[in-house]
């Protein structure tokens, strides 16, 4: 009887998890070994053929490279800015509440709305950025139309959107540090930077790890802005892995290949997350 109760209590959560997480994962893996079926020709088992195709796919490698640059651009910058903002608004400061709110605002805006705001910034000639450049006599530039700048435009937007969110975690962690520690540091003559480097930052490491993992996942997951700003263009210069998967699945209607790409994405994320935990865990002090 006790076992029945146990299973009954587990069932609601289990149904949700299996239906929306485990089954889709397994189904995706399964589909990636089959060809794309049509009305005339049902899907057939093709082994690793989809994967071999993926390795030969130039666009795949391009979006992987884009995604790596995007991650490298957004993750450290957004974490550093978040930490800086948190330290800043944790101190004594006039209108502190307003400053905290201002930093947090980008987080509560929907990504689609954010992208529309930034679309105006980046628009050639009439956009805010170009108007600003004109003040210094610089020529107009099609920021989103230039393959050399488009990815960085997306990166800046993502940093702006995410830093405020991560700031909240750092702010909470900073406020949980006992104030006597700082006083003890001041008595010993530790300067602000020295104290930050030797005490505050190490004590924030658990939060930093948490934020780092979230930032990493987001750098693969957050692609909404592409729909508004660039649609991955020009010439896939701003396309990211997840956006490419969406295109393959719903524009090119090649679900089997999309499943293959998804497996690649999941594997990448799993390896990164495991790596972060194992490497960082040894160097972190948990209270």
């Amino acid at each position, binding site marked *: 009887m006790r076992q029945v109760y146990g299973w009954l209590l587990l069932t609601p959560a289990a149904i949700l998890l299996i239906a929306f997480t485990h089954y889709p994962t397994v189904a995706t893996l399964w589909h990636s070994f089959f060809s794309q079926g049509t009305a005339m020709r049902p899907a057939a088992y093709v082994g690793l053929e989809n994967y071999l195709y993926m390795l030969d796919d130039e666009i795949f490698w391009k979006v992987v490279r884009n995604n790596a640059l995007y991650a490298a651009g957004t993750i450290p910058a957004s974490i550093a800015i978040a930490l800086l903002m948190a330290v800043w608004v944790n101190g004594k400061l006039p209108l502190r509440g307003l400053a905290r709110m201002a930093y947090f605002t980008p987080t509560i805006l929907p990504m689609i709305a954010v992208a529309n705001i930034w679309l105006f910034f980046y628009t050639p000639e009439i956009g805010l950025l170009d108007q600003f450049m004109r003040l210094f006599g610089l020529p107009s530039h099609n920021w989103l139309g230039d393959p050399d700048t488009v990815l960085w435009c997306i990166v800046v937007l993502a940093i702006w959107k995410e830093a405020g969110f991560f700031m909240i975690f750092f702010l909470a962690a900073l406020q949980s540090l*006992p104030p*006597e*520690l700082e*006083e*003890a*540091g*001041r*008595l*010993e*003559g*530790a300067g602000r930077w*020295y104290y930050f480097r*030797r*005490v505050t930052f*190490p*004590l924030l490491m658990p939060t930093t790890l948490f934020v780092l993992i979230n930032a990493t996942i987001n750098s693969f997951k957050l692609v909404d802005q592409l729909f508004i700003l660039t649609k991955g263009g020009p010439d896939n210069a701003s396309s990211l892995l997840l956006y490419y998967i969406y295109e393959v699945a719903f524009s090119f209607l090649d679900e089997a290949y999309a499943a293959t790409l998804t497996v690649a994405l999941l594997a990448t994320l799993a390896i990164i997350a495991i790596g972060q935990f194992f490497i960082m865990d040894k160097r972190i*002090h948990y*209270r």
Partner: protein
Amino acid sequence: MHAIELDGVTKRWDATMAVDDVSFAVEAGSFVVLLGPSGCGKSTTLRMIAGLEEVTAGRVRINGGDMTDEPPARRNLSMVFQSYALFPHLNVRENIIFGLKVRRVESGERDARLRRVAELVGLDELLDRRPAQLSGGQRQRVALARAIIAENPICLMDEPLSNLDAKLRHAMRVEIRELQQRLGMTVIYVTHDQTEAMSMADRIILLRDGRIEQDGAPDELYSLPASTFVASLIGAPPMNLIDVADGADGAVIEGVGHVVTGGAGAGRRLGIRPEHIEISAGDGLPAALIASDYLGADTIVTARAGKQDVLVRVPGHRKVNNGETVRLSWPRESAHMFDAATGRRIGYADPPAAAIQSGPGADE
């Protein structure tokens, strides 16, 4: 030149006056306790000396130099915090030498000092542990070691023993006092525990509502309390404070005919320490014994005279038969008189002339 000198130091937060015009000077090498109930401003005073709190008015001088506006690190003092304030991610060694590293003391000197201090406080075996792996007493020692390794002549302590259990507290009390004397440190020690103050201090500064209520050696506070407030704070159990009324031949306790002291009664309070009262069969204040509290070496007996309870310390074990009628007597010089309205000391009750003149910290 004094090690520390406070001159009219005041701290105000908006409407609240935390410390109000406090002045005192501390001799180098002495152990001074700031004593008082919570909220009396003792910790704030200490933090102003440390420079962790800004001074609203007045001056703080350390070793003769005006330090009122100097940052904490420039004041050449160490501090032990109530919560110890150890860095949880650093091991004992790193915690102790944190300040030396900040000040770039070269490593040979650093190691030598670390060895000396660790041995002094008995931490040599534990240098690689983290604070979380230590007991309360060991953490306390780390905090002490961090304070003394700087070799500053002044050490401030903010209720350093309040997180320890009673037995350990006693041991640490002895240890801190011994350390202070061996190193010749000037210590300002904040506590609300009168036992700590009495047993450790060269001098007690008793604060009340941000003002100094009395400033003197422990035995002065014990034998010549400046007010009922001091009388009720010093001693365990504290001094009996008995309301007296006018009687035909002198002051009496209302409802009891016996004259307890000469002179008028109304508007005065009689103070007698429980250890100075004797239970006798012969002459004295008639009272009924109502309770006893056996402490081992002695017993605290509660006697009721009129409507007032009087505590009496009796050596050994004393059983009380409820309602047992006895007489209480005390030497004349053990009775203190206070003004009932202001609480200030008036003098000994009917004192021998010699006591008034020779008594230190003359009465009002």
